[in-house]
């Protein structure tokens, strides 16, 4: 396959970026999208040019490191996968592919396709935990049975990989799906209920401070989420937040 690429190049955080054209002469369908970029970079190094920097690590769809906006969609055209699981067989000979970093005010570009997602870190630090110290004598794991329905829902919320596709997909660059996934996981479990009020207030406050937009229920985040995190979680966070506000 011959593929035409338009890749966002930006020297550093303060530089002005631009789309640069590259042509890939022999792309195979079994290559992953990132392996295609590896080959582009090998070509650039051989020519004495600076390779394209992009974030990636596990290459099996679980670490949430890759942050590519491919033809306008986070992680590309396929559903329920990250860019590293996208294979070139999803494209055809002669296609033009535009590759940009995730775009959001709260995700400034570091270099080329790499963005800074430390805003997500600070949201988690504000309350994404249960306050329990490590000790040799905690409660036995089976002392509190948890209804399977809630355990499964908590698990589904917990599968968020923190990639930021939800933010990149949202026209408001809202982080509601990301934040609500953690709030929901703990709100659904007896261990998490104790601090539920403080948690939702602190995490939402931090989310707003970071400059993420508001949620207008377009649902793009759910569609683009590589782990299929449900909008239900946003509804649950809104309920948690409202009830926390009433409790003062």
């Amino acid at each position, binding site marked *: 396959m011959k593929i035409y690429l338009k890749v966002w190049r930006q020297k*550093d955080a303060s530089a002005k970026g631009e789309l640069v054209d590259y042509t890939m002469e022999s792309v*195979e*369908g*079994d290559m*992953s999208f990132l*392996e295609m970029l*590896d080959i582009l970079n*090998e070509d650039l*190094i*051989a020519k*004495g*040019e*600076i*390779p394209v920097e992009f974030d990636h*690590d*596990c*290459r*099996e*769809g*679980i*670490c*949430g*490191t890759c942050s590519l906006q491919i033809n306008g969609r986070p992680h590309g055209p396929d559903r*329920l996968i990250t860019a590293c*699981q996208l294979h070139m067989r999803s494209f055809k000979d002669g296609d033009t592919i535009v590759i940009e970093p995730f775009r959001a005010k709260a995700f400034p570009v*570091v*270099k080329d396709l*790499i963005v*800074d*997602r*430390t805003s*997500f*870190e600070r949201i988690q*630090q*504000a309350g*994404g*935990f*249960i*306050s*329990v*110290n*490590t*000790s*040799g004598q*905690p*409660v*036995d*794991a*089976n002392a509190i049975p948890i*209804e399977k329905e809630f*355990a*499964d829902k*908590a*698990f589904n919320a*917990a*599968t968020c990989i*923190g990639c930021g596709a939800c933010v990149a997909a949202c026209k408001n660059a809202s982080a509601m799906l990301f934040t609500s996934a953690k709030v929901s*996981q703990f709100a659904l*479990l007896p*261990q998490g209920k104790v601090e539920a009020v403080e948690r939702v207030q602190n995490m939402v406050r931090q989310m707003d401070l970071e400059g993420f937009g508001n949620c207008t229920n377009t649902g793009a985040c759910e569609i683009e989420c590589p782990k299929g995190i449900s909008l239900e979680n946003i509804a649950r966070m809104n309920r948690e937040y409202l009830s926390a506000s009433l409790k003062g």
Partner: protein
Amino acid sequence: MNSNIPSGPLADKWTKHKNEINLVNPANKRNIDIIVVGTGLAGGSAAATLAELGYNVKTFCYQDSPRRAHSIAAQGGINAAKNYQGDGDSNYRLFYDTVKGGDYRSREANVYRLAEVSSNIIDQCVSQGVPFAREYGGLLDNRSFGGVLVSRTFYAKGQTGQQLLLGAYAAMNRQIHRGKIKSYTRHEMLDLVMVDGKARGIIARDLVSGKIERHSAHAVVIASGGYGNLFFLSTYCMGANVMAAWRTHRRGAFFANPCFTQIHPTCIPVSGEHQSKLTLMSESLRNDGRIWVPKKIEDAVAIREGKLKPTELKEEDRDYYLERRYPAFGNLVPRDVASRAAKERCDAGFGVNKTGEAVFLDFDAAIMRYGREKALTSGIKEADNTLIRKLGEEVVEAKYGNLFQMYEKIVDENPYKTPMMIYPAVHYTMGGLWVDYNLQTTIPGCYAAGEANFSDHGANRLGASALMQGLADGYFVLPYTIGDYLADDIRTGPIPTDSKEFDEVEKEVLERINKLMSAKGKHSVDYYHKKLGKIMWNKCGMSRNAKELQEAMTEISELRKDFWENVRVPGTADTKNQELEKAGKVADFLEIGELFAKDALERNESCGGHFREEYQTPEGEALRDDENYKFVSAWEYKGEPKDAVLHKENLVYENIELKTRSYK
């Protein structure tokens, strides 16, 4: 070698040790700094716990968040001797299975402690909100893993590692929020700084600005994972590297058993030259999947050429070789045994994909079995095969859905309809920095935890034990043992970073970077990494022999020389530069690769993941030599890897009788 194992009966050692070691009072902990390098399960859990205790912790990771460490990719589960299933499990059995599974090359006292704290790990994680799988009664569910006869593995679908890491990450976040952990992300440790013979800090590089930084502390914990990426193709993440551990080794820490590497039997086979990494299919699949190749070579050829579909092959024409060779454990033999058996069949010409390096993992029998059970429990009396199959596929999807989906995305075949193809791949390194019972390396004040140390898995790790060991080290072992050392440091005060020791190490680090940047050759870093990977896989892989190991040592040494003269690193060192990051990592792989081959050459026996062709039974099973090789090889750095000096830690078995490992 003094491993500092406490005296007394095995089951009492850890309690006795905890009672006897020195403690640091809470007010003094505030004056003590600890650096933790790596924030996976071991580093993350250690950092959180040390900060809870009151120490000032600095963590370093190359990722943009601690949540992305590769512990996240562990799929199948975590072992614990809870005996919730009432199937006869106990601390002793977990201990025994782990020592046996490691082919009697691990330290009894360490492994017993691991089994002893395993239950606490599950309790701790549940209290943190880790959503383990549960049964309808609301209690925790278990499944089986290879090499054992009980169900002791706790899991969270196919993402156990992610959920456990997010638990440790949340515990870290709580401490970051309190200001007790300072988290340095996108940072890389480039060297260890020693003052008066003690580890007192590190030199790190800010990967965004390229700035070289000095960080001091009273103790340094290396929890930077394993070195399997030296094979180029592996199930490791792309960024995994040995730099922190290897730099520590170069400063005097002994490196133990480098040749003990785990080759995991169930990975998606290599598809072509462009491939950058291999993907693991969880060992849990072997609970239900049956592994086979055709019995007749002509059928294997026909399948390879696409003339015959695997589903068309009759039952009697299939060779379920694990069930045939190991009737007691069948498809659930340990990883090393399963990997070698696959290689044996493929080498004999029975491989089933284009390259001839793949075997089938077939769920058909499980689908039909589950389907019949589901039909009965749903009250459907006369279900036909189509309905049974449909019901069975739903059960299998609930159990392994995400793994099947991942397989389909990568291979473009539907594993519900046609058997999966799998082949062994490099997955884990049992070797690592030598540590004593306290997890201290041979450098005072420098500790190693998780995969970065060598301690608990001997020559082969059992499935679902890596998560257990990482969290045991970080949550329950290191926080005690490090206090014993730091009790002497309460009057030391902050360690200055403007000393001559920091000056000297920083100067060496800068010289190394300049050397990498100034080699203006014609080959990229990946060119060298791929070449190294080929040497390792062909000559130091699933089976090894003296001649090829000697060749490997020479070839790696020559490749290293070529690398330093001819590697091309574009860009500059004072900005974000991923090629420079890779170059530093590959430079270290080119050193440890040679030590790896040397270690494999010196160990004239077959044990666990280390299979020497010269030492095998007539049936092709591993032939261990307990008389001459019942020791840990701990290597001391002396310049070139080939000049490393061997120190032996003799392994003493007081509670387990050494036997030939049999899974028949």
